[in-house]
């Protein structure tokens, strides 16, 4: 049984997709577009495509290989691009697509629902299975070199390039980004106001971390959506996630469950967040957060 995996150069999630593909047994063909990816596949197919990302063109690269190699499974990363390109492939071939899988056993897959708060076992009724791999569900394979590399030039139609990135607008980065931060200090409803975030910012600053928040906070307009941690916001994976005044709705947990450790600061000892936290301090965050900042300063002698 052969497997085809869509990979992107320098992409951790692609190496996770490759690991899942490898676990299925049989030869692993990888395809990358524009430039070769550093993957230890049996064969790496490099699609010669110039210019910026165009989902339709990437889909054509995949479907051409599907025709040529007749794989039984096509795998991609559960990233925005991986999900998008395989959805194009699925639409063209009129096949089901199982997005964000964690496991595959024959015709059955396990996939995530609700941003990872729920698992679904599903049966795929198709001769060719299309699936993407849920981020961080499978340990990534080490980067490496393919046993052989073949280049090909997909035959593109005009429609393949109708949707294409025409411009990249760079955003000036302000401080530590949520996705890269070692520590994220997040505030929820319990913070009470936009001004209330001053103590959250102070603690994040002392720890060299980033400020996050829950959906209630962005809906209230206290913080911009870019700060939102959650299923429909940013998914974070810091060493320590400090949830201040956050009850712990599944929407929020989907965004912070990637943290190594979670500390909850909450006045409600029954809050849902405690079922997901490693540590907790019970009480008023408006007293506790400044006390932690003061303690950090004291310890540093500043």
């Amino acid at each position: 049984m052969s497997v085809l995996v869509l990979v992107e150069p320098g992409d951790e999630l692609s190496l996770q997709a490759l690991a899942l593909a490898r676990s299925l047994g049989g030869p692993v063909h990888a395809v990358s577009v524009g430039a070769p990816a550093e993957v230890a596949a049996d064969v790496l197919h490099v699609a010669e495509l110039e210019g910026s990302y165009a989902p339709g063109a990437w889909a054509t690269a995949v479907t051409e290989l599907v025709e040529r190699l007749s794989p039984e499974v096509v795998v991609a990363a559960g990233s925005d691009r991986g999900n998008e390109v395989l959805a194009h492939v699925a639409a063209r071939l009129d096949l089901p697509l199982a997005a964000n899988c964690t496991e595959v056993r024959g015709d059955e897959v396990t996939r995530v629902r609700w941003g990872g708060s729920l698992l679904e076992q599903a049966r795929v009724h198709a001769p060719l299975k299309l699936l993407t791999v849920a981020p961080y569900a499978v340990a990534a394979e080490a980067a490496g070199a393919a046993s052989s590399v073949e280049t090909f030039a997909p035959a593109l139609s005009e429609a393949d390039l109708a949707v294409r990135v025409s411009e990249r607008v760079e955003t000036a980065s302000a401080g530590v980004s949520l996705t890269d931060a070692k520590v994220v200090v997040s505030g929820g409803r319990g913070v009470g106001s936009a001004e209330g975030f001053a103590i959250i910012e102070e603690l994040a600053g002392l720890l060299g971390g980033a400020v996050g928040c829950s959906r209630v906070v962005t809906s209230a307009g206290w913080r911009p959506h870019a700060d939102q941690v959650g299923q429909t916001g940013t998914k974070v994976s810091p060493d320590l996630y400090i949830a201040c005044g956050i009850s712990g709705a599944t929407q929020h947990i989907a965004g912070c469950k990637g943290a190594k450790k979670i500390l909850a600061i909450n006045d409600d000892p029954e809050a849902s967040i405690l079922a997901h936290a490693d540590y907790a301090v019970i009480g008023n965050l408006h007293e506790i957060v400044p006390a932690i900042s003061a303690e950090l300063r004291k310890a540093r002698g500043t």
Partner: protein
Amino acid sequence: MNVLICVKRVPMTGGKIVLTEDEQAIETRHLGFTISPHEECGVEEAARLIEAHGGESVVLTLGPPEAEEQLRECMAIGADRGILLVAEGAEWDAQATAAAIVEAIRAEDVEYDLIVFGNESADTGGYQVGIRVAYALGLPCVTGLKGLTVEDGRARCEQEVPGGRDVYVVPLPAVVTVKEGLNLPRYPSVPAKLRAQRKPVATSTPARRDSRLEKVRLALPPGQGKSAEILGHGPEAAPAVVEVMRGLGVA
């Protein structure tokens, strides 16, 4: 211009998901229902486009008869009328859902300039219905929008990527899928909610296709119900917190 926004009724799961005994669904007896935050932004965006350009915004859902409640909520934000596709039988997969939506769009007298979906649904998260509908209708599709400007028959679409934004410009008609953060949806006023009760909803029952991605059972992920180590109560816990931070190498 005419804008169609497609939404999905989902339970408000709160802090903890509980499954029904047969493991086929979430136990919703004590839960309210809503739509995905992505879709809410889509409804708001559709309303703003109509306010700026004139025309009609229509909200469509495929779901149980009770999903009319979600259509009314969307009409309170701004949609002018609703289309309810009553889904019979077990859960519909993405292919069946897309096929029913395509049929409903073709049956409409209006030509839609923009067909809007959430980037992915809150519950099943299949990431594909919008793209499938675009293919069936022969339209371009841009996904994951965090910015949208419509001008001179074209849509300028902005997608958030690490370090910045990717811009796509596509001619209308087009399909777009949007993400939360595109805008800040308004809270509907009481008069808007009352008006929404009187707006028309067209109901039909599409034929169901067999699921090719068939749900077998649901399960809660392992590692639920951790019990947190209580470091203390109130500000007196600060030294213990800093101790933990040192242990983790982050202080």
